[in-house]
């Protein structure tokens, strides 16, 4: 099994290259089908990996590790582990679904668009799978380029503004991240004697208080913008509204997960002490995001803006779960990434289909239930997932997050370390009410009412088939999450251990400063030695 799986991963990446090549340069009319086939084969590979991955074997099982810039410790190191296995599946599913939905839309006919989509998929999968920090950063930034072009070229009226805002904003967030990446490489040089950006090495480093703080701030800033979390969400409504709907679905479904994933992959393990200290602040931000997004979504007339703000609210849950350092909450966050990816992509695709059918007047649509029953049912299912109805993935994830956060809050309270997490969680629970409020209001406006006689075509079989995998996964996670949870269990245990090892004796002032001084001495000494 392990061999075949390894081969699978190895084949995934070159496959992209090949396709990029063919879709950009070959002037054949079959590029759309070619892209679809490629995405489907990636889906097949990823699904195979997902099903075979049992979580207990650790990250070494399915990986490729090719030295790239050996002297700097930068390797082309990709591997599947418990944290990224959901996201791999999510990305692999979303792309063919999105392409199928925008099959007849104008952009899908152009080779550039397809190439951009594939480049995006490459960047996303690369980000999620990379086990080398520098590689991670390269993919992280590489994702911006296709997205930027996609918004700029295929976007709406204010596409230029939206693209620039999105690009500059996210770029600004990751500038500091690059500094942190380099800093970590230098740390590794000082502590182990050689350059290394491998996560496995970096996790083992003893980082001083100041270094951790810098890394934490850099990572959180980059991720908070990417997610986004309040108050870094300004680019979100504009970008989501102006991007072509395929782009929006991918941005909301997969791109925003990079931020949450970055928090899990970088912030917690690399800066565990600072994470523990900063957790209340992050929880507060998360809760503010939840409520802020939800309240704003209550009164949005533009459906896309509404879903965009709901997305802000749902991303808040993920962050809440991550910073609760609690196994159930972490499981919940992982599920929420998957679940939100599926539901929000589904919602945006639905809106996109409507936009395709009636143009810009989709904003005034109403009474779909009477005119296009199949479409209405699918839309309703996505809405209910978003409302976190039991038996959908939304419930599984939000329940686990709130459950874990609450247990964490109670534990913190009883340990005498403040009631903030507890109160924040209880307030976050009220997001359930608001969520039901704005989503069902949305449903009421768009689905119910008297027919407006626009003559909406119902879902075509192609489109219906495209939504099927999303819905199946939603129901699977909702009804029987245990087998999926088992895949992430090892990673979650490891992650909580990494954080909670440091958690209780919080060395706020005394020891970390000393450590930091020593580190600085090291830096000076080593730096001098290198210089000579």
């Amino acid at each position, binding site marked *: 099994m392990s061999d075949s799986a390894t081969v699978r991963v190895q084949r995934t990446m070159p496959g992209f290259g090949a396709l990029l090549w063919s879709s950009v340069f070959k002037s054949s009319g079959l590029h759309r089908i070619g892209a679809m086939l490629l995405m489907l084969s990636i889906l097949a590979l990823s699904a195979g990996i997902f099903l075979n991955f049992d979580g207990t074997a650790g990250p070494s099982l399915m990986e490729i590790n090719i030295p790239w810039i050996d002297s700097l410790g930068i390797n082309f190191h990709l591997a599947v582990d418990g944290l990224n296995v959901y996201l791999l599946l999510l990305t692999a599913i979303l792309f063919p679904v999105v392409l199928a939905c925008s099959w007849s839309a104008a952009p899908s006919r152009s080779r550039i668009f397809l190439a951009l989509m594939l480049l995006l998929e490459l960047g996303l999968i690369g980000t999620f799978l990379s086990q080398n920090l520098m590689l991670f950063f390269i993919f992280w930034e590489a994702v911006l380029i296709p997205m930027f072009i996609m918004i700029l070229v295929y976007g709406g009226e204010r596409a230029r503004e939206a693209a620039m*805002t999105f690009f500059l*904003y996210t770029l*600004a967030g990751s500038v500091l991240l690059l500094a942190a990446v380099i800093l970590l490489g230098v740390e590794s040089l000082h502590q182990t004697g050689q350059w290394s950006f491998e996560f496995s090495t970096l996790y083992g480093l003893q980082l001083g208080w100041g270094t951790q703080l810098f890394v934490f701030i850099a990572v959180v800033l980059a991720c908070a913008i990417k997610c986004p979390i309040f*108050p*870094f*969400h*300004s*680019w979100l409504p504009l970008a989501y509204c102006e991007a072509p709907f395929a782009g929006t679905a991918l941005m909301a479904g997969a791109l925003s997960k990079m931020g949450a994933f970055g928090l899990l992959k970088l912030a917690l393990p690399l800066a565990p002490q600072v994470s523990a200290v900063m957790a209340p602040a992050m929880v507060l931000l998360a809760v503010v995001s939840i409520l*802020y997004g939800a*309240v*704003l*979504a*209550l*009164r*949005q007339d533009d459906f896309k803006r509404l879903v965009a703000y709901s997305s802000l609210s749902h991303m808040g849950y993920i962050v809440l779960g991550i910073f609760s350092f609690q*196994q*159930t909450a972490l*499981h919940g966050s992982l599920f929420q990434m998957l679940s939100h990816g599926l539901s929000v992509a589904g919602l945006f695709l639905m809106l996109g289909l409507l936009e395709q059918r009636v143009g810009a007047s989709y904003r005034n649509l109403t*009474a779909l*239930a*009477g005119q296009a*029953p199949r479409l209405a049912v699918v839309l309703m299912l996505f809405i*209910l997932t978003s409302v976190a*109805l*039991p*038996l959908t993935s939304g*419930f*599984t994830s939000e*329940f*686990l997050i*709130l*459950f874990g956060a*609450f*247990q964490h809050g*109670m534990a913190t309270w009883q340990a005498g370390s403040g009631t903030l997490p507890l109160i924040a969680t*209880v307030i976050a*629970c*009220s997001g*359930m*009410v*608001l969520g*039901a*409020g704005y989503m*069902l*209001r949305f449903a*009421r406006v768009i*689905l*119910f*009412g*008297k*027919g407006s006689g626009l003559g909406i075509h119902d879902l075509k079989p192609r489109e219906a088939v495209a939504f099927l995998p999303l819905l199946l996964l939603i129901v699977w996670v909702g009804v*029987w*999450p*245990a087998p999926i*949870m*088992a895949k992430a*269990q090892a990673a*979650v*245990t490891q992650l909580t251990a990494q954080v909670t090892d440091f958690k209780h004796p919080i060395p706020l002032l005394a020891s970390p400063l000393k450590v930091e001084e020593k580190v600085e001495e090291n830096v000076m000494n080593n730096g001098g030695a290198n210089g000579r």
Partner: protein
Amino acid sequence: MNQLTLIPILPLIGFLVNGLLGSRLPRWLVSVVACGLPALSFALTLSLFMGIASNGTPVIENLFTWGSTTGFQVDAALYFDQMAAVMCLVVTGVGTLIHIYSVGYMSHDRSFSRYFAYLNLFLFFMLMLVLGKNILMLFAGWEGVGIASYLLIGFWFEDPDKTAAGLKAFVVNRVGDTAFIIAAFLIFHFAGTLDFQGINAFFSASQPSLLMMNVIGILLLIGACGKSAQIPLHVWLPDAMAGPTPVSALIHAATMVTAGVYLLSRLSGVFLHAPGAMAVVAWGGALTAFLGATMGLTQYNLKKVLAYSTMSQIGFMFMACGLGAFQVAFFHLYTHAFFKACLFLGAGAVIHALHGEEDMRNMGALAKKIPFSFATFLLASLALCGVPPFAGFFSKDEILWSAWSSPNGSPVLWLVGTVTSFMTAFYMFRAIFLTFFGPCNVPEKVKKGIHEGPPSMSIVLGVLAFFSLVAGFVGLPGFWRELLGVSAPFYDFLAPVLGHAGEGAAADHHAEFILMVIAVLAALSGIFLAWLFYSRNRDWAVKAKEIAGHAHGLASRGYYFDPLYGRLVAAFDWVSESLLARRVEPAINNAIIEKPADGVSRTASIFSRLQTGNVQGYVLYVLVGLALILWWGVAHV
């Protein structure tokens, strides 16, 4: 797959078949699937019930592990004990009857299959709620019935009022659900499990502080209030009458709204150790019973009268729960399911006959035109009013007796209960006199078409009326048991799970008899007054209304709960639109996007001023730069 699993699965299959293929199937097949599968569930329940009645051991079915991680495991498991058995019988039994009734009632509707799909979906979730072995399963069913109710209230989705009512029901329920889920988290924190047996065992063995117990109790109560339409979360129930009448009968009278009582009884282990919460449950129940009845007095919409009556009766059940007499609450739940379903279906027959007219002022003199519906309606009303020997008499009387005699009870509670039952009798017979007697206010056009419903409707009415008559005999109060020398199989059956709490004080049969007589007299005088006001001398009613003045206005407007919540929603909307969208969002955009962008361009304009185009100037800059670098290098060597 064993019997127990099949009970909820069968309606689910019905939902899938009707939901996915229904529009292509012939109507008779849709009806057969929709009614046959619940009937099958009922048969299975019955056979399991026989088993549990004979050997007394609960049936447990572990399906799969829902989710597990370190220190947390929840199984998808079903649990069929005595309490679940009673609920299950009611749900599948009444549910099947109402499905059959609906075949006739909905026969003219375009979305026939969609209706039955929703109804089957509701049954699935309700059975999941009832059979769930742990809080998570119950909660899944709990929210599920909420969504089924949402879909069914807004079933005629072309009417914006109806969809708004569905929305309101779901959101108000969600408020309760949020409290419920927080209570579940708290329970897990202490007990370390979500399993009902584990929870009850844990809390009877050791309790955290009294405050915590009360907090848990109150939170659970809020959850139950949402689902069971208790004050202050009752506002959705009257609006929920927008749904088709059989739906009101099934969901908003017989089964779903009583889920709160089921929840309280399921977690009786928690409540018995939370005296404060118990008192709130009891007094809150009494308050709802009373206010519900006063609101029922003033309504003209036939279904809304029944809705307020439902609210009021569930208030009685809550009162019994709060007094620790869970088995009595359950008994009332069980009898109430029959007579209230019968009342709603009777009202449905009236509405069906009048082609959708619901206002009682436009009815009258229908007793002769639809005698069978009238007879069943009358029987069920008598049961509701607590006139012996109908079913409601035994259960309501037992509740009143508990209010008087139980250690937590008080004469005031009893008095409130008795006054409420007087008002109940009054408003029910007010409805009967307005609807079935007096002058006929039905428009001429409709008048000719008045007819009894199809056989499927009448049979169901008959069966339910029959049960309204006899269902009470399985749980005779202590006084009657002694008098007749029989036992109360209902209480004996539930004893293993709910105990005989509250029965201990029943020794004083003398007092019990006197109270019983007073309650019956109250009910009869209510009926008499209604006759006086609405049949004999209609002017009196108008005069009474004038005398009541503000009180009448208060009650008929639902004590201004709706405007209050309307304000709350408006406040949220204001925050959303006027504060966040207009003020905060632009401010954040300004601070995070525009300000930095401005800063960059302003700095750029400063530097661009250096660029004069004069070559010599540039050389000078180079010179200065060079000099600075040299200086820095010299200084740092």
